């Protein structure tokens, strides 16, 4: 087992675990945080696949901007929950 293979297996395990956990964890905010983690791990996976362009784009767009959009939606959801029912 070469170090590269060990790293790949660890990275894939982390990818699968963060993805599965993001979909099953109870709080939606935690789910979005796990999704951002998933996006950053995907950037690492792209770097391992000799695809630096995709790694840059995934980190900025996939993890960063998508994460920002999702967090904004959660903020809106929470503000809506705190409004008095009309």
């Amino acid at each position: 087992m070469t170090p590269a293979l060990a790293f790949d297996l660890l990275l894939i395990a982390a990818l699968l675990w963060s993805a599965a956990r993001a979909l099953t964890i109870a709080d939606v905010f935690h789910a979005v945080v796990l999704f951002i983690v998933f996006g950053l791990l995907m950037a690492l996976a792209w770097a391992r696949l000799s695809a630096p362009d995709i790694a840059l784009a995934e980190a900025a767009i996939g993890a960063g901007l998508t994460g920002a959009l999702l967090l904004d939606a959660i903020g809106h959801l929470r503000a809506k929950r705190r409004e008095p029912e009309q």
Partner: protein
Amino acid sequence: MSAALLYALAGAALFAIGLAGLLLQPHLLRKILAFNILGSGAFLILVGLGQRDGTADPVPQAMVLTGIVVAIAATALALALARQLLDLTGQMRLPEDRPDAEPVDD
């Protein structure tokens, strides 16, 4: 089995996880997360299979780059629609998916 093929197999697993999440989770934000995971799995399969003999292949990489940008466009539109539904009904679930009880606090 090269490293790229290993990532392609991981992409298949991610695809299945995303698909199961999309079908089973009623909460719209989680459906959007599942859709993104589905897309990421498909991208890993594209690049992983294209590079399975070890050499970097620019054509699937360019396709995945396009795919990432289209995925965020779709996510943004989906989020806008979900927020519209939230404003109109007070729920982040589709009407047929929620019980007729009070809004769930999530």
